[in-house]
């Protein structure tokens, strides 16, 4: 935990917004995006929706990876929103060498690219594979697990918006309980996605004993960049799971993407932590704990929980218990480290 504690001490929060102030941080620690020399791995003009968390997360992650590798980077992309909105033929937003093959094989394609670099003696060229939660936790899971267990030199980044957004908001194995999707409609005795389902991919990644696993969020871009840069300093299979709200699929306001991402972590539903070789090495403490209602209420996918007449109260309480369990499991409430300013 010591590493992340040190990070916490130099973080500054502007009053009211709870954002990390770039201007207040010394030059060396500033965000890649704060620099005029930023690499713009994904340049402007792409077709993402307003307020897209994935576009934001991918740009920060890839630019951080480019900074860490001095531009010696190849990106592999699973089919999905990120692939579609960045490459409407004949245009491309990618300023790094980039390949899209299929929905379920990004991790394997990346293994192939890494093997080619190794055999050609160009090991300074690093590989990042990326996919949405569907391409990662469902259809791409087999290839991802294979890449992990072989410890191939690939950083895999999952941009988790908790459903199949590109095909029109269908449930994935990353969809949380009670969330309404097109295939878990908010009707019947158990509206939305059911409890007791889904998989926690960061924990599954850890079970492969790979060198590095982390969760990150677009609500804390400094933390996200730091984790990507840390991952790029390590050889072998690495996994970062980034929380990226989707205004379209979640029924949230475009201007609320960052706020909702922050609420997800501050209520405990999306814990931010790191692990090395299967052991948790650190977590980001919650600065200002909020009840899950605060996170759920601004999203239409959870609107049925707040309707009169149902058992929404009991179901929200069950989500709160999940959040509390995360807080206990990952040690997210640590009094001494709170309120750096």
């Amino acid at each position, binding site marked *: 935990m010591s590493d992340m504690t040190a990070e916490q001490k130099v973080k500054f929060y502007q009053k009211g917004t709870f954002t990390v102030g770039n201007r207040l941080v010394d030059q060396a620690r500033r965000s890649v995006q704060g620099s005029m020399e930023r690499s713009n791995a994904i340049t402007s003009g792409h077709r993402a929706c307003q307020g897209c968390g994935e576009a934001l997360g991918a740009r920060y992650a890839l630019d951080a990876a480019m900074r860490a590798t001095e*531009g*010696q*980077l*190849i990106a*592999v*992309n699973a089919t999905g929103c990120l*692939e*579609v909105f960045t*490459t*409407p*033929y*004949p245009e*491309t937003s*990618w*300023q*790094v*060498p*980039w*390949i*899209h*093959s*299929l929905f*379920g*094989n990004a991790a*394997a*394609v*990346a*293994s*192939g*690219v*890494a*093997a*080619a*670099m*190794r*055999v*050609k003696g160009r090991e300074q*060229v690093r590989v990042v594979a990326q996919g949405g939660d569907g391409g990662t936790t469902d259809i791409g899971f*087999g*290839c991802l*697990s*294979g890449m992990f*267990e*072989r410890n191939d030199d690939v950083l895999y980044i999952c941009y988790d918006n908790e459903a199949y957004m590109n095909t029109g908001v269908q449930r994935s194995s990353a969809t949380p309980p009670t969330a309404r999707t097109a295939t878990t409609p908010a009707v019947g005795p158990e509206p939305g996605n059911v409890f007791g389902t889904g998989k926690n991919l960061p924990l599954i990644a850890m079970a492969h004993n790979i060198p590095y696993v982390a969760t990150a969020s677009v609500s804390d871009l400094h933390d996200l960049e730091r984790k990507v840069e840390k991952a790029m300093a390590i050889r072998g299979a690495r996994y970062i799971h980034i929380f990226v709200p989707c205004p379209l699929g979640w029924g949230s306001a475009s201007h609320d993407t960052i706020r909702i991402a922050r609420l997800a972590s501050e209520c405990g539903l999306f814990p931010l932590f790191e692990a090395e070789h299967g052991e948790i090495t650190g977590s980001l403490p919650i600065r200002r704990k909020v009840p899950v209602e605060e996170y759920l209420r601004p999203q239409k996918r959870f609107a049925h929980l707040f309707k009169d007449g149902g058992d929404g109260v009991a179901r929200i309480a069950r989500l709160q218990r999940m959040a509390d369990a995360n807080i206990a499991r990952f040690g997210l409430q640590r009094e001494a480290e709170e309120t750096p300013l």
Partner: protein
Amino acid sequence: MLEQIEGSQAVAKAIAFCRPEVICAYPITPQTHIVEGCAKLIREGAIQNCEFINVESEFAALSVAIGSSAAGARTYTATASQGLLFMAEAVYNAAGLGLPIVMTIGNRAIGAPINIWNDHRDSMALRDAGWIQLHAETNQAAADLHIQAFKLAERLSAPVMVCMDGFVLTHAYERVEIPDQAQVDAFLPPYQPRQVLDPSDPYSIGAMVGPEAFMEVRYLAHDKLLQALGVIPEIQQEFKEIFGRESGGLFHSYRVEDAETVVVTLGSVAGTVKDTVDELREDGARVGVITLCSYRPFPLDGLRYALQGAAKVIVLEKSLALGFGGVLASDVRMALQDTGTHVHTVIAGLGGRPITRKSLLRLFGRVERGEIKDPHFLDLDLDIVRREIDNQRGQITAGPIAENILREIGPRAAKVV
């Protein structure tokens, strides 16, 4: 050097001389001996500077190959049967991306019922994916075709499948002329990719293409395979100049010059057919055989020219389009359209059923006498089939067909007709 060697090991040695840089494979019978051979050659140092990647599925095998090929590495994999179907999505993708991957298919039947023996329904299922498909007639051809395949794939920037009959070739020991490294180096230049993932010159590969350009992209993929009809004979000639033997090409003709009846076939069964042709020729019959080497692209014009003297064509194929009939036969009919040549479809050897000289002699006789219907199923036990049809017709809960048939023929299952 002439060696008495198993087909799979001959192929592994041929691959080694091609200086592959990435080999990835998932085991499936009857492909296993090839990739085991490759893995051993890498560990022993006979293949230098090559990564062998043990993947978790065939889908991953070809996906890793896509990544390494797009990053500029000469890449090889091998599969068969269920494995080829499991990677089907990546098979189309590799062709769409124009990646010169070489893949061996140890041709094997597709289940259910599960069957590990040879027929051609696996590679036939992927015949329209955009890969060049070459079929080996012997183990010498199998070894030689792999060396040619890399050159062909890289010259056209298109993937190539080398199909060799499972067990009949992969596990058979034959005399094979194994080339030496100097010969292969003289024949096969280093891989120069048309497009490559490189930070110094970043490309986006695999972008989305809409209706405004998709037709043109697909047409160009078709055109590339048609170009192969010219490149395959060129490479056959270049191969002959260095290795001194005839190998590859679009198809091989055997005693067809004055033939009235010509068999058209694919793969290792050609040997048995040639022996049968020789026997019939001794009795004065004017028969011949054409063995296709390139199934995709299909040499329509060349075949039409080669068959112009024939009155009857017998297409002998180890494939079957269920609910339709012959697969190869349809292609041959396309080549012979408007010629009036009579084409007989003969489905044979499914799931490893032996195709014997005795059966072929009987077949020729029946064709001559006009006794066969189209399609004809060689050595099909019609009594058993009819009884099971009656059985199924009579009762809704008749049980699984495969198990019913096995129960009936159990005691004579091993008998070769």
